[in-house]
């Protein structure tokens, strides 16, 4: 027993790369990414599953990483905002956020991008209503949402 209690080894892939780290199994997936794996792109917002800033995908499913135990990452595919772009090229959604002013202070942006990218992957023609329903768990205190909705609409058109 260390000061942090019993440790376990978590093996998973993060944005396609294999990772293996020791931590307490109840460490949140958010703390695992930021403090154990050292990947700080995923942001901490409310830490109660309310704001979506820490959204990641787990085997392709969007979750709030602050309310997921690291133990549940074992053997899974973890997706963060870092996995959305190639090294020298932003994704269509990231470009649309830049062009439409979908990001201001940036705290909600990684979660917005991860959650939005998952919606785009479904490949349907997006409507404002569908976007607002899907993105309802991602809070932004800067843009007023209009520009974020516009960014998703533009990315959806780009990809078609």
């Amino acid at each position, binding site marked *: 027993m260390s000061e942090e209690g019993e440790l376990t080894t978590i093996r998973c892939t993060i944005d396609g790369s294999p990772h293996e780290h020791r931590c307490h*199994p109840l460490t949140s997936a958010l703390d695992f990414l930021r403090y154990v794996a050292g990947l700080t792109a995923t942001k901490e917002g409310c*830490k109660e599953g309310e704001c979506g800033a820490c959204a990641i995908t787990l085997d392709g499913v969007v979750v709030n990483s602050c*309310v997921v135990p690291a*133990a549940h990452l074992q053997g899974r595919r973890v997706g963060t905002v870092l996995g959305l772009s190639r090294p020298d090229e932003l994704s269509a959604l990231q470009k649309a956020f830049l062009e439409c002013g979908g990001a201001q202070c940036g705290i909600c942006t990684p979660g917005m991008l991860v959650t939005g990218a998952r919606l785009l992957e479904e490949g349907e023609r997006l409507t404002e209503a569908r976007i607002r329903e*899907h993105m309802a*768990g991602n809070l932004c205190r800067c843009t007023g949402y209009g520009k974020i909705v516009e960014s998703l609409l533009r990315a959806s058109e780009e990809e078609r």
Partner: protein
Amino acid sequence: MRARLAGFSLERPGTLDEALGMLAASKERLTLLAGGTDLYVYLNAGVARPGRWLDLWGLDELRGIHEVGDHVVLGALTTYTELRASELIRGALPLLAQAAATVGAVAIQNRGTLGGNIANGSPAGDSLPPLLAYDAEIGLRSARGRRFVPFDRFYTGYRASVAAPDELIEQIRIPLGAGSSSRACRFVKVGTRAAQAISKVVAAFVLGRAGDGTVDHCRAAFGSVAPTPVRLRRLEQHVIGKRIDPALIRTSSDVLLSEIAPIDDIRSTARYRRFVARTAWQRFMEEVPGL
């Protein structure tokens, strides 16, 4: 800030039998972890109960939605996303699908479970009034065996239930006819905003009428108006055998108000909750099809 985890440990059983064995052998009460959407709020805030936690999330025996005989059987780990997507639930038990769509938003619906909503026991749990309105039974499982408890007798007080320390919720069983399309039904949630809001008042109503127009079946269930989710039995009895008319809507509303006991808290006031609960019921009654 990282949560302090000294004093917490996690057991990860590979099978349901293994989990039941751990529950049976434990001297302390284990904390049962499913999707974590409630427990991690407590853990991150530093108010979770330390000790041994038992991780149920990997137990496939607790998943799935099936029609078994004349019941719909839902595994305790059924998520809100699965409830929303299920043709069976949308067709036979629509209030449950509607409630699932109002819980949190996509990321929470992907992780939050029906069994977790029941076990957490918040009086504001959105899936709980539909379960009451549909005469759900809770299937409790332990190494000693399995038993079913009618959901309206599951809670014994605020966040307290009949589940023994060695029992876990295995499944939820609902009669197929509970949501019959010949009955009028409605789910109502009133919160601060559409998504991510904890309910100020949440309700589920089911009402059936005989050929002569008199009410022959009624369920009225509310959350956030008492220490536990509640079925208003006096209200239900009051309308049985009667025709729906303005007088019945008025008198039944008085019965409703005498039967709920909401409080003032951070989300709302007792006065507002009484007003909303009555209005939800009145609108439902006024809008029952065929009146």
